[in-house]
């Protein structure tokens, strides 16, 4: 074979591969089969408690309706694997995932709109949870099945040792954090304790995720919704600047945040609280079981997040049942979502010490105290109902969270940076992101 035919063959091969790489397609109506089993994907660790909880719920649903459900637990690269199935036009029927994934999934066209009339019991859902399942166009694309908010965890023994009250505002929080850092609350004679645990890494936007509890309580915001439904960047407003400055001063001026926070995501941060290196931590209820085991229930207390300059708003999160596009059994999808939010489904989801998948119930008629006889859960339930807020449902929240995390991370890592200049730069970037998504205010 001379050179030119080889070359032609190579080019032809590449072209064929390129053509293979291009996919065409679109959502098509699939023929319905009322007996088709449901394939359910949950973003949880395979073999872990979350998977056990999902299987328990699926088994109860099967017993109640006779409808088969196959549960698959995936944690790493969940969204990537879902994209692969989307490319094959073979999506699972149900996806149980973070409520904040709504915008991304709607943009990709992989979820179908939820007809609330077809979901029995949807009128009993808590309004904030239901609102979080709506996209920017006001249509509902998910059914919330679990909710959670953040509260403040404090090392009770340390607090008693330094003789300070439970903090109810930011000043008291800063004072207590200072005492934990300087007064040797663990009594080991070494200056190795810190006031506040902060997962300040940029990974998955952790720094921004954690800071939202303080930003909103301070009256600031990442992006502000306008009257016409568009959004404006809001990180350089006076309230946002003040909240960022206060948070940054904890790390840079009073130095009450654990060292290395700028490169820590949640696992090492959780360890600092467990190992007696940090005395306060603002987190959701999902860590209680872990900390009870590591520290003991008596060692720490759960209290509402202290009030900021505006109020005590904390981040609300949760899980949603997503009804995926292209399902051959839409009736069963609706039935499963109805079961997940029914009082029975909610209770099954909450039962157990570890293998529970419902943190706080989203059904108004379900009282958490009837299932979990633990007053700490009531603190979380109150925080969720009285002063919590979800991330806004924009087409893609991830870039906003990530860009903000980059800046917050920079500010706590480099105390010499000009805060106002960085936040102005951040607003420019956020403006570009919003424009890219077609929701930027002109």
């Amino acid at each position: 074979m001379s050179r030119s035919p080889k070359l032609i063959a190579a080019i032809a091969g590449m072209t064929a591969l390129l053509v293979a790489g291009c996919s065409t397609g679109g959502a098509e109506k699939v023929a319905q089969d009322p007996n088709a089993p449901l394939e359910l994907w949950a973003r949880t660790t395979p073999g872990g408690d979350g998977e056990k909880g999902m299987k328990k719920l699926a088994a109860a649903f099967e017993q109640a309706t006779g409808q088969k459900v196959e549960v698959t637990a995936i944690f790493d690269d969940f969204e990537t694997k879902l994209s692969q199935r989307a490319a094959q036009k073979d999506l699972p029927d149900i996806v149980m995932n973070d409520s904040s994934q709504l915008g991304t999934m709607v943009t990709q066209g992989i979820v179908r709109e939820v007809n609330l009339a077809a979901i029995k019991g949807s009128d009993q859902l808590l309004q904030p949870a239901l609102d979080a399942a709506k996209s920017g166009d006001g249509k509902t694309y998910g059914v919330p099945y679990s909710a959670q908010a953040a509260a403040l965890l404090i090392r009770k023994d340390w607090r008693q040792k330094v003789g300070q009250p439970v903090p109810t505002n930011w000043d008291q929080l800063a004072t207590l954090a200072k005492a934990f850092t300087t007064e040797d609350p663990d009594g080991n004679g070494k200056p190795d304790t810190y006031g506040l645990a902060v997962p300040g890494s940029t990974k998955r936007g952790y720094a921004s995720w954690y800071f939202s509890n303080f930003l909103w309580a301070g009256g600031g915001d990442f992006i502000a919704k306008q009257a016409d439904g568009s959004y404006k960047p809001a990180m350089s407003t006076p309230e946002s600047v003040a909240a960022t400055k206060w948070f940054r001063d904890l790390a840079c001026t009073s130095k009450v945040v654990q060292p290395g926070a700028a490169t820590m995501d949640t696992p090492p941060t959780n360890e600092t609280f467990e190992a007696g290196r940090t005395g306060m931590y603002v987190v959701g209820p999902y860590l209680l079981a872990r900390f009870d085991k590591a520290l003991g229930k008596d060692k720490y207390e759960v209290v509402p997040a202290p009030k900021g300059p505006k109020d005590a708003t904390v981040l609300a999160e949760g899980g949603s049942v997503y009804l995926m596009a292209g399902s051959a059994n839409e009736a069963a999808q609706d039935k499963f979502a109805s079961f997940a939010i029914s009082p029975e489904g909610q209770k099954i989801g909450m039962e157990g010490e570890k293998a529970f998948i419902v943190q706080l119930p989203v059904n108004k008629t379900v009282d958490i105290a009837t299932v979990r006889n633990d007053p700490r859960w009531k603190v979380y339930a109150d925080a969720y109902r009285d002063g919590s807020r979800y991330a806004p449902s924009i087409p893609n929240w991830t870039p906003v969270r990530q860009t903000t995390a980059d800046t917050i991370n920079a500010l706590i890592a480099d105390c010499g940076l000009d805060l106002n200049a960085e936040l102005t730069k951040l607003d420019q970037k956020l403006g570009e992101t919003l424009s890219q998504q077609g929701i930027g205010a002109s």
Partner: protein
Amino acid sequence: MTASVKTPPPPTASTGWTRRRRIGQWWVPWLFLAPALILFLYFKFIPMAQAVSMSVQEVRPYLGNTWVGAANYAEILTSESFRSATWNTILLAIGQTGGSMALGFGLALLVEGQTRKLSFIRSAAFLPVVVPMAVVAELWRIMYHPTSEGLMNQVIGLIGLGPSGFINHPDTSLGSIMLTGIWRGAPYDMMIFLAGLAGIDRGLYEAATVDGASTKQRILHVTLPGLRPVFAILFVLAAVRGFRSFTEVFLLTNGGPNGSTEVVMTLIYKLGLEQNRLGVGSAGAVLLFVATLVLTICVQLLRRRRSA
């Protein structure tokens, strides 16, 4: 570059069997290569081609991709984050390549020899290469603890320095990742140097000794020229490795603080897999591939010119 055209030797009166062996069964080597080639085709070449096609589209796996032409390239080339990530990648690649080669060469000179003790030391020195990067990164993250209690801070404290923030401060973060990379890459380079050292004619050393050359002169005039091809291979391998740095950065700093350690690979990961903008991420991946290809070709051309 000059290409000399060689005329084939006139056919000899060889038997038909040898001729068939020489030119007939052309498919035999391909048969041996086939298993690897099939795996490479499926897991490497087809995905690479798909990345090229994705880089000119807005990727929507379910709804179908839409053609956007050079828009993804325009976006990534004009973004400040890509430019700074490129710069960081180049710095990291140069630092890790130079550092690993220098340290690897030093180690190779120290552990070259035949005794059993040395082979044990060689194996021990090679350990960082076989330890999974995730484990290495986690260990170094602990060692880089930014207070005076941290192991590395205790080490530099012995000479009166520190405590340093290491990976937690924008001024020292890239250097810290570089150090981790050098620690891990040097033993690999050491092994290749050892192979190269074994190929140098001992007679040259003896002649140099007879001529009264010192150890330094022997290294300079015998060892280094003898290792020239090894340097070229290592340079390409190490530079490509440096360009593709991902795991250590992702696990140690994830590109922070303040973007000081963001490299092209972590940026591609964020754009493609975290933000679901696979088209823009693919454009970045294609650009990285082109840069690596250009670098490799340049090194090959330089080598040929030198040896011509």
